[in-house]
């Protein structure tokens, strides 16, 4: 039998998804487009809110109220939403690569719940001991990491990660951390209760520039570290053995995903509380539109997550203005039905046949 060289210029006549394989040019084109969308969303979100402000005046009249509202309230809030959305969506995509299933996400698996408990504990114990604010993200990260590893190990049955076992373990972790937070809640005074509620519902209310900076730096480092493993994540979808036989250090990859997703989720939770489903919705939309290649998925989820979260927060603060909804409630309201849809679909498809 002679080897027939496949002509490269001929378009294959196959039916199927109209999708080219990933090239550097395509990656940059997609990310450029997403960056433009993100910028547009930032501008729109800065322009609208419960109080009308003039964006031109905000920049020209440094003494005016428009300037004060823009720089003290509107812009920090939009930036915080961007940072948290980016971190949650990219970490969701990485967790999905880890468990080879599109249903994984920090909120659903109870990782955010662990982070929130760590943050609340740090806040209360820290306040008692007069400790610094910096231990809050640190404790959130520690508790997130603990949850990630525990959920992963508990969901593993006979060396296999069954999607439904994983989801059940996530449900259990969520109620466990919820209960732990409620117990703390019952033991503290009224003022602390308010901030506990803030963590449970998720909000971008009045972030400080310092909080934004911490979350942005941790989110960016985490994203960079995960992105370095993007190609290995593709190979991981072939299973542990096949990935390892293609040269992937699977244990190292797993540890990296545990570590960096926990840092990103911990950072997000410590500044904004529990915001669920963003890590589920955004990667799924991107996979649907652009395919599952993680070299594209991770950065696209990072940018898309930022835009999605800013839009969700814009909705949260304008829909019943001048009052506002917790943004976590908005994402959960969209995400719940979406999750059920994914669950039905994945239950049917032969993911592990």
């Amino acid at each position, binding site marked *: 039998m002679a080897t*027939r060289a496949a002509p490269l210029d001929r378009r294959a006549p*196959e039916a199927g*998804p109209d999708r080219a394989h990933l090239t550097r040019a395509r990656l940059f084109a997609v990310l450029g487009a997403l960056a433009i969308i993100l910028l547009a969303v930032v501008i729109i979100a800065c322009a609208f809110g419960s109080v009308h402000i003039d964006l031109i005046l905000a920049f020209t009249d440094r003494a005016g109220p428009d300037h004060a509202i823009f720089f003290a309230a509107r812009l920090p809030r939009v930036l915080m939403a961007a940072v948290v959305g980016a971190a949650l969506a990219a970490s969701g995509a990485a967790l999905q690569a880890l468990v080879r299933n599109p249903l994984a996400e920090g909120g659903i698996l109870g990782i955010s719940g662990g982070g929130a408990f760590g943050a609340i504990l740090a806040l209360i114990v820290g306040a008692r001991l007069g400790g610094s604010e910096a231990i809050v993200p640190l404790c959130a990260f520690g508790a997130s990491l603990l949850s990630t590893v525990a959920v992963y190990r508990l969901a593993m049955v006979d060396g296999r990660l069954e999607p439904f076992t994983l989801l059940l373990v996530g449900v259990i972790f969520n109620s466990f951390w919820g209960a732990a937070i409620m117990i703390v809640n019952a033991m503290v005074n009224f003022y602390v209760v308010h901030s506990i509620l803030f963590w449970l519902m998720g909000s971008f209310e009045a972030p400080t520039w310092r909080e934004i900076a911490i979350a942005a730096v941790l989110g960016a480092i985490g994203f960079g570290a995960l992105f370095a493993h993007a*190609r290995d994540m593709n190979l991981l979808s*072939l299973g542990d053995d096949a990935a390892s*036989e293609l040269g992937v250090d699977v244990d190292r990859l797993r540890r990296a995903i545990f570590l960096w997703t926990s840092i990103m989720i911990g950072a997000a939770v410590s500044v904004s509380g529990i915001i669920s489903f963003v890590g589920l919705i955004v990667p799924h939309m991107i996979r649907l539109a652009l395919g599952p290649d993680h070299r594209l998925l991770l950065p696209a989820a990072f940018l898309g997550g930022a835009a999605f979260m800013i839009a969700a927060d814009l909705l949260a603060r304008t829909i019943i203005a001048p009052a506002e909804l917790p943004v976590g409630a908005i994402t959960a309201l969209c995400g719940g039905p979406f999750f059920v849809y994914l669950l039905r679909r994945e239950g049917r498809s032969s*993911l592990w046949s």
Partner: protein
Amino acid sequence: MNQPAENPALTLRASGLSAGYADRQVLRQVSIDAGFGELVAIVGPNGAGKSTLLKLLARTIAPWDGSIELLGKPIADYDRRELARTIAVVGQENVIAFQFTVLEAVLMGRAPHLAPFSFESPRDLAVARAALEQLGLTPLAGRYVQELSGGERKRVVLARALAQEPKVALLDEPTAFLDLKHIAEIFAILKQLRTTRGLTVIATLHDLNAAALYADRVLLLKDGEAVASGAPEQVLTAANLRAVYDTEVYVGRNPATGAVMVLPASVESSRPRE
């Protein structure tokens, strides 16, 4: 055969391999070697340790005892990616999560050749397209792997292994799920790669007739031990097979090919004799 000087006659040499899982020993003192361009078949009943032996040779699991040398160098000394450029493995279980297309899945075979952060070059794409063409997958290149049949998926994994451009291919039941035409095609492709590129193939095979027809040498395993090893007609004898499979067999010659032919001959298993 014309061998380049840097290739030792024996591509892979493993001796005295023992291995198992937890407390259960699966292989005892098994030796196997494979020469440049050879096809060695590992046969034996279920649970004989065929797949475990293949996993040892792929370094997916580590042996309890024994040594494995690949191209004159201990397999433990290989860097992961260097090993992945040398050995391609086609396992029995072929899963893929997420909606990757056939072309994307086959391009994954190029991963051990790519520098960090680089994308597939036109040559990588050409190698993957040629592998698709060889396995008759070109019309399916844009389809989702998850939507394919078992046999088509098997061919996708074989194409991925070809795209790796390995020196050694370790195939665990490469013919499972495939129909007669595709089985013949796959052995024809392997034959071509063995003669043109000197690819060494080690395959576990359930099908003794395929082993007899296509293999240069056969290793017969039972309960984790080597019973016989050598040319098909020396190993696949009625006496050996009766002892290993614990059933009556008829061993003759395939009138079309002249290869050894094995048929079940246990009368109780079929219709009563008149």
